[in-house]
Every structure is written in structure tokens, then in C-alpha cells.
């Protein structure tokens, strides 16, 4: 699924990683810390404050949620990765069939486009500052001015064109930017804390609560409790850990204990950076009364030019590979299409999505939905790996039967996802509550349908 010419790391795509290519745990710590300090963090932290999360719940909820995420990497994903040593796509292809993997990859690509759209919006908020462009207000669905649309289109076009040129340049630039960005996140939190001006925890708590009241009005609109925060933190990367996408990463690990390295990403990017970004909005509300989580303006207020550049770089270095990956997914769907064309198509979709600020302002819901759709495929891999012998069905069924689509996987995946989509979109259930039930249901249904279809085939 990947582009070997442009991504020099794409070796052993269709063979297990050999012992000579295995790496120690240190390499994984650096990779995770860099990957998870991204442009999205500038939006997610402030959205917690706007959702009425108490100060105690943001510290404790994120602590518990991120710990559970690390445990998921360590004990769900890494053990299979270090035994099978295959990429997610190759592993899934053996179970689900080549055509179904393409369909899964397409879903991945489409969701990536909207995620990249949110990143383009984040970058545009910083690019617009020198031009004094008024940005959309919080909860806005549509763009508020021609100038904003122009900035988004320009940012999106540049990102799409760079992505179309290949993965290598972007990956190298992201490699340079990552350590600096992590420190800028921390610096932003420190300066915001000074601007908040609290002398102790109690004072900080009072200002935080006041910020929520200002943002939501005296009656309050929404309250995300402890478990909402914890479950969001646990599952925002669910496609990677319980969804098994990081089989592709940990197949290089000497031991499953390298899974602990995910803590580097979680506690830097999803703990420190989210809390720092939330403090940035609290400081902005205290100083100006402005409750719009505009990453460019918030970062400029607490870090000056370094903050503005950080928002642009964070948005760019995350949107760019995301568009590139979406392009690869589209290319895989259309035989004979060029990667460049498909990347530009993905870039166009992402840019159009970026024009609508709702994708950035509703990022918590979107990320939860993204996990709900993709993570259950990990349950198929988990059930196939651990329960095929015990339950009495053949593992890697598609490889053995030669079928393009394993119906057991398709049905087991679609039923829970369809029900969850209804609950989220129609009944208004928070998406992060649906991910674990969906994952478990998919695993159980996969075992049931595998036994059912395989016994039917045996009878025939």
C-alpha cells in the first residue's frame, strides 16, 4: 500500500521483518514522542475547556486515558506485531482478503482527508494573522469571509502540491521540527500559566471554572465528565493500538516491551501538549474574553512569532503526510492511476473540508468517529490470532481460500459500525463511548461468522 520509491522505510511489506532489521526500544520512544506532538493538539486541548471539563478531570482523565492507551499498545498490539512481524495491510489481507483491505484502506483515506482538512484550517488560522483576517467563531460551520476561504485554499494548495511530490521531503522536515515543536508546546503552557496568574491550585481552579462559565454562558451547555475525557484519550488513537495499524511499526521491535514507548507520545503529545493548549485558551479568555479556540492567535499570544511558526509547522507537517497517505489509499482503489494525481485529489478534498471550520471545531467528535470505524478491524486480527484454534476455525482464511473478500470479516465489521454510526449521528451518543463496544462486538461476531461460513464451506 505504500510507495517504496518515495518512502525508503517501506521494506518487508510482504514478508516478515528479518532479525537483522530489528531495533531496540530507544528508536520507538523517539518516534512516538515526535509523531504525537501534532497540529491537532492545538485544537483538542481548548475543546476540552469549551466542553466544560473540570481542571481535576482534565489532569486525572487524561492520566488514566493515556495510561490505558499505552497499555493497549503494549499488551494488544505489540505482542502480535513482534510474533507475526507483518504490516497491518499484509496481515489483514491474509484474513480479510485483498479487496476488503482495499475497501478498509479507502475508508481510512477518506477519513484522513477530513483530518487533514482540520489541519489546514489550523494552519490557516496562523497564516491569516499577518493579514489581519477575521477567523470564524467557535461552533461556526461555514466560512465567515472570502479572505478566510482564500487563505485556506492557498494553504491547502501548497500542502497538496508538496505532498504530491512525495513523502521524503516532508518526513525529513517533520524530523527536524519535532523536538522544537514539543518544547514550544511546553513553553506555550508555561507562558499561559503566567498569564493566567494563579498563585496555587485553588486559584488556577477558580480561573479555569470562570473560563468555562464565560465560554459556555452562566447556564453551561455541555459537560464532559471524567470518563468522557479518559475514554477520548484512550481511544483517539484507537485505530493505531487496538485497531492494530501500529503492527507496521512494532514489527521492527525486538521485544513486545517496546510497546511501552507509546508512553513517549501519549504523555508528551496527549498529556502535556493538550493541557498546555487548554491553558492557552484559558489565558486568552482571562485576558480578552475571546472564547474562540483560534490556534494561530492563541499561540501568538503566548509565544509570539515562535508560536505562530509552530502552528503553521505543526499543521503542515501533519496535514502533508496525511494527504499523502490518503492519496495512496485512493491510488490502491483505482488500478493504473498515478500517485501524484490521487494525492492531488486527496489534497483537493482535504482543502474543501478545511474551508468548513466545523471539522476543526468538532474535532473531538470526528476523532471518536474515526476510531469507531477503523479500530474494529483490529478486533478481527486479535480474534484470528488468539481464538482461531480455541474456537475451531481456520486462521488467515482469505489467504487459504484465495477469496478477495472474507464475508465473516465484512459482516462482523459492518454490523457494529452501522449500529454505532446510527447511535452517534442520529441518537447523539458521544463517539468515544462506542469504540470499545464496537471492537468487542466485531471480535465476537468474527468468531461466530468464521465458524458459520467455514462449516458451510466444509459441508459443501
Amino acid at each position, binding site marked *: 500500500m505504500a510507495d517504496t520509491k518515495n518512502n525508503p522505510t517501506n521494506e518487508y511489506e510482504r514478508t516478515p521483518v528479518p532479525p537483522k532489521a530489528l531495533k531496540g526500544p530507544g528508536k520507538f520512544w523517539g518516534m512516538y514522542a515526535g509523531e504525537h506532538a501534532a497540529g491537532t493538539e492545538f485544537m483538542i486541548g481548548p475543546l476540552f475547556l469549551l466542553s466544560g471539563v473540570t481542571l481535576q478531570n482534565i489532569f486525572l482523565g487524561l492520566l488514566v486515558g493515556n495510561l490505558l492507551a499505552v497499555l493497549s499498545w503494549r499488551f494488544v498490539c505489540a505482542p502480535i506485531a513482534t510474533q507475526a512481524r507483518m504490516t497491518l495491510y499484509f496481515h489483514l489481507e491474509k484474513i480479510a482478503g485483498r479487496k476488503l483491505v482495499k475497501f478498509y484502506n479507502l475508508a481510512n483515506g477518506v477519513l484522513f482527508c477530513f483530518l487533514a482538512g482540520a489541519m489546514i484550517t489550523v494552519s490557516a488560522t496562523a497564516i491569516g494573522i499577518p493579514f489581519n483576517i477575521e477567523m470564524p467563531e467557535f461552533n461556526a460551520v461555514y466560512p465567515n469571509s472570502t479572505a478566510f476561504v482564500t487563505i485556506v485554499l492557498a494553504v491547502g494548495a501548497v500542502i497538496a502540491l508538496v505532498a504530491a511530490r512525495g513523502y521524503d521531503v516532508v518526513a525529513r522536515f517533520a524530523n527536524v521540527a519535532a523536538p522544537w515543536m514539543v518544547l*514550544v508546546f511546553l513553553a506555550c503552557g508555561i507562558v499561559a500559566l503566567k498569564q493566567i496568574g494563579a498563585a496555587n491550585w485553588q486559584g488556577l481552579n477558580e480561573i479555569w471554572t470562570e473560563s468555562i462559565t464565560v465560554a459556555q454562558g452562566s447556564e453551561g451547555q455541555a459537560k464532559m465528565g471524567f470518563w468522557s475525557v479518559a475514554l477520548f484519550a484512550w481511544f483517539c488513537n484507537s485505530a493505531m493500538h487496538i485497531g492494530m495499524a501500529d503492527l507496521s511499526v512494532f514489527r521492527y521491535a525486538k521485544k513486545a516491551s517496546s510497546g511501552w514507548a507509546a508512553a513517549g507520545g501519549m504523555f508528551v503529545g496527549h498529556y502535556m501538549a493538550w493541557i498546555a493548549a487548554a491553558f492557552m485558551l484559558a489565558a486568552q479568555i482571562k485576558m480578552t474574553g475571546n472564547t474562540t479556540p483560534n490556534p494561530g492567535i492563541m499561540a501568538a499570544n503566548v509565544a509570539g512569532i515562535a508560536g505562530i511558526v509552530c502552528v503553521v509547522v505543526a499543521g503542515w507537517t501533519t496535514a502533508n503526510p496525511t494527504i499523502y497517505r490518503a492519496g495512496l489509499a485512493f491510488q490502491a482503489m483505482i488500478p493504473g492511476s498515478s500517485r501524484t494525481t490521487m494525492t492531488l485529489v486527496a489534497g483537493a478534498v482535504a482543502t474543501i473540508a478545511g474551508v468548513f471550520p466545523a471539522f476543526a471545531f468538532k474535532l473531538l467528535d470526528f476523532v471518536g468517529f474515526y476510531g469507531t470505524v477503523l479500530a474494529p478491524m483490529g478486533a478481527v486480527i486479535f480474534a484470528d490470532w488468539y481464538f482461531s484454534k480455541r474456537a475451531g476455525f481456520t486462521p488467515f482464511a482469505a489467504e487459504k481460500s484465495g477469496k478477495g473478500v472474507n464475508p465473516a470479516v465484512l459482516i462482523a465489521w459492518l454490523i457494529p459500525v452501522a449500529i454505532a454510526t446510527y447511535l452517534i449521528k442520529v441518537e447523539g451518543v458521544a463517539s468515544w463511548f462506542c469504540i470499545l463496544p464496537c471492537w468487542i462486538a466485531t471480535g465476537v461476531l468474527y468468531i461466530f461468522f468464521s465458524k458459520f461460513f467455514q462449516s458451510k464451506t466444509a459441508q459443501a
Partner: protein
Amino acid sequence: MKFLPLISLLGLALTIIPPLIHLFGDLSEKMTFTLMGVGMVVWYLAATPWLAFQKPEFDDSTQDQI
């Protein structure tokens, strides 16, 4: 070239130490922002020549960037 990693560390120091002095000491906000800006320039100039040419260790093509 040997000194570039050390110089880039200086860039990182200028990014994080001024905010700490601003929080616990009496460094002004304006000076903090200026020093952070200088740190940024130092970091990118010094780190790019050695960090940008390191071969990526992994296939991270499945990462979701959240």
C-alpha cells in the same frame, strides 16, 4: 559540522529557558518572545543539516497524526 548538534541544543535551550525565567523570575514577556524567536532560528539553521539527512527508522505510513 561536529558542533552543529551543540548549537542546535542552544536553540532548544533558548526556546524553553526564557519561558521558565518569565514564569519564575522577572524576564518580560516581550523579551521571552524575542529569545524564543531567536531559539527557533538557531534550531532550524543548526539542526537541519544533520537531522534532515537521517534516514527514517520506520515505515510510519499508517500513523494518523492525531
